[in-house]
């Protein structure tokens, strides 16, 4: 299908979002809560674009806006730039010390703000919550509303569901969720909750610590076809096992 970005015709594919199209075509649109591996959420309101034809006119978040034939989009109208600027300034006021936020705010024309600052490390983009949900772990979620909204685990206690997969840390744009990898365990701290420490299971071949036991069991449960009878084997043991198999030797 064909549609218009800033007056130019582009070819878009079924199921694509406007943000994905813009990215693919090299049209710059800032974003924060968007992550290519996660379900779009539309919360940070940086990727705003304006629909001027072919759809319901007005400002939309491009990460949640599906492409449709004949859609006419402006990615940098005055309205869009103003709305983005306010949003960026509000994010900066929330997390004025965060380098990632400062960079995005500066890109949107807000080098500094005189609004009262809150010095929060988490900007509530929800990437971590979505990653955790998509991995079917559901260890973290949002609690409370408005300015009291928090990413947290139930009762702020060390999570009993977290598998220490660290997906949340990896997708966090501001580094708000901390984790430390020790030789024998992983420590993870979901914002203001109690830190969680998970022991690593031992490799059944070499006996060295490998992945957190809970993570192993979670994957085993979710993918029984692959892993039902398997035992944790660390990558280096697995490699030598496979080499042995390829060379026709029995492993053991």
């Amino acid at each position, binding site marked *: 299908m064909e549609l218009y970005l800033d007056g130019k015709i582009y070819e878009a594919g079924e199921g694509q979002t406007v943000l994905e199209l813009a990215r693919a075509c090299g049209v710059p649109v800032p974003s924060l809560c968007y992550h290519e591996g996660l379900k779009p959420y*539309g*919360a*940070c*309101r*940086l990727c*705003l674009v304006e629909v001027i034809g072919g759809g*319901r006119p*007005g*400002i*939309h*978040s491009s990460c*949640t*806006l*599906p492409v449709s034939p004949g859609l006419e989009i402006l990615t940098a109208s005055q*309205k869009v730039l*103003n*709305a*983005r*600027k*306010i*949003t960026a300034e*509000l*994010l900066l*006021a*929330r997390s004025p010390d965060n380098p990632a936020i400062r960079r995005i705010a500066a890109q949107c024309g807000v080098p500094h703000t005189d*609004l*009262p600052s809150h010095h929060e490390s988490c*900007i*509530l983009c*929800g990437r971590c919550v979505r990653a955790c949900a998509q991995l079917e772990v559901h260890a973290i979620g*949002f609690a*409370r*509303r*408005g*300015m*009291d*909204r928090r990413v947290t685990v139930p009762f702020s206690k060390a999570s009993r569901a977290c598998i220490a997969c660290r997906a949340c840390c990896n997708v966090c744009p501001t580094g708000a969720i901390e984790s430390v990898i020790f030789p024998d365990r992983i420590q993870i701290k979901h914002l203001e909750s109690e830190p969680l420490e998970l022991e690593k299971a031992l490799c059944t071949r070499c006996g060295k610590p490998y992945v957190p036991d809970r993570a192993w069991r979670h994957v085993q449960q979710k993918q029984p076809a692959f892993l039902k009878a398997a035992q944790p084997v660390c990558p280096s043991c697995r490699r030598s096992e496979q080499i042995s198999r390829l060379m026709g030797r029995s492993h053991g």
Partner: protein
Amino acid sequence: MKVRSKSELDELRKKGWECLRPSGGISLVVGMASCGLAAGAEAVYRKAVEIAGRRPGDCRILKTGCLGFCQREPLVEVRTSAGERMVYGPVASSELEGYIEEWSRGIFPDKGKIGPLPPLPPNPPPTASLLSWLPDHPFYKHQVRLASRNCGHIDPEDLAQALALGSYQGLARCLSAHSPEEVLREVKSSGLRGRGGAGYPTGSKWETARNAPGANRYLICNADEGDPGAYMDRSLLEGDPHAILEGMIIGAYATGSRHGLIYVRMEYPLAIERMRHAIEEASSLGFLGEDILGTGFAFDVDIVEGAGAFVSGEETALIAAIEGRMAEPRPRPPYPAIEGLYGCPTIINNVETWANIPMIIENGASWFAGLGTAGSKGTKVFSLVGAVAHTGLVEVPMGTPLRAIVEEIGGGARPGRKLKAVQTGGPSGGCIPAERFDLPVDYESLAAQGSIMGSGGMVVLDDESCMVDIARYFLDFTRSESCGKCTPCREGLDRMLHILENIADGKGTEQDLDRLIDMSLGIKDASLCGLGKSAPNPILTTLNDFRHEYLAHVLDRSCPAGVCKALITYGIDSGACSGCEACAKFCPTGAISGEKDLPHRIEVEKCVKCGACREVCRFEAIRVGAAG
């Protein structure tokens, strides 16, 4: 017993009519919606039952919903066997004995009399029709009660009475004589628009859902009324639940839906109780459930109690709440009519919208379209509250001038006060200044003023209201009700409230006013859902029409209305003070002292500026002056 034939239905209607119209003696009908109960209707009802127990056959006691004139609650209507009807209020239980004595002798004393209602004819009307109200009373004469047609006439817990006034006649007609397509066409051509706030054409919404792919469809009645000062939906639910149910069943027939849900906030326990009872009654007579009225059509309705977040009135948040998730909105598209509850096409309409449907079917689209204006058809229910002589539930044709609502129905300002503005649309709406009270009240005219129709809250403000304080109040509300999902609404409303509080504290600057406008416009465009998109409206409209009040706060450091605490001091005019000691008794901090019969004075250090003294003073001796 399921109703299967017209004669069975007529039999029920006859029974209901006998309840409504006494055949001997008198009937007392006590207004027992939440408004009445809050004013003491329960005690009146109990007393009435007690007295009636001593006069068997001579006096019957009935309950009804909201009669509308909340200012005069507890309201009692007396009906005689001659068909006469007279409304009284406020009626105290202690006066009841005397009243009943006179009423049963056909005497209608002047004390507490509001006026006569047109008599009930000997037989029930053949179709659902609008009963007239007090045709000569200023509160009622401009009103056309369509959605609230039966509220205040019937006992909401007696289906027979609703049937007597024509409930479910429209449904019977639909099922027996019209195809779903015809019903849909009728609703579409009536021009009915959603009464919940946004005013989206109801018929188009139904059509989208009907044509959307999917085997299952849901209907939802949005009864999560949350605007401060608004109680339209509550009154309809408590006064005539069958109008809403009938509308939903007709909607289900037109759109091919099998299940309906009523999402009611849990703070409306009486509405929930009466609706639950109505569903049971309607099911037992075969208006709901399998094989409705023997036609093979099936539809059921459940109640979902909402746990009290303002944002769950937003349709996508409401769906999330019903599904058991946090009540958070999501971006649209997809629209709920295509992908809603559990991913199925879902039609969400407000309580009042549903209550209008049966009358459209009964009287025809063109009859409905004959009411109102070119773009806004029918009537609208408002809850008229605030600084006005008569408060209450009001229903007028769309396009009625604001002045008629405020000054005639509402009776204008209270004695000695001057009207300043009307706030429409609740925290999402704006303030219309008194100079523009000739504005016709319809979707387009209100939008052109930067306000919205909203669900129908109407708060009247007079010269004792500070517009900075009003904007601050509504912003404080939306800020604390924001779900916090999107940045502009969560962070923006908080920072704007900070700026407004500064202004109210006399620490603002003129630049702050421009800053508020910039932020408001940005937040309106950038926010995810209707809450954030409309929350700046009270600021924008007050800044537009009452900029001088803001300027007084930032330039002169004064609050002209004498409201903003940081900018005022309380004092006592020694010439006017009689030394009655009332103020000293009521002062919560003991800031007032003086000898009896001699002028009192206020210690500024102890005074918390609560205004209690001013309220109790009968000599207008309490003076509010500029601080400092």
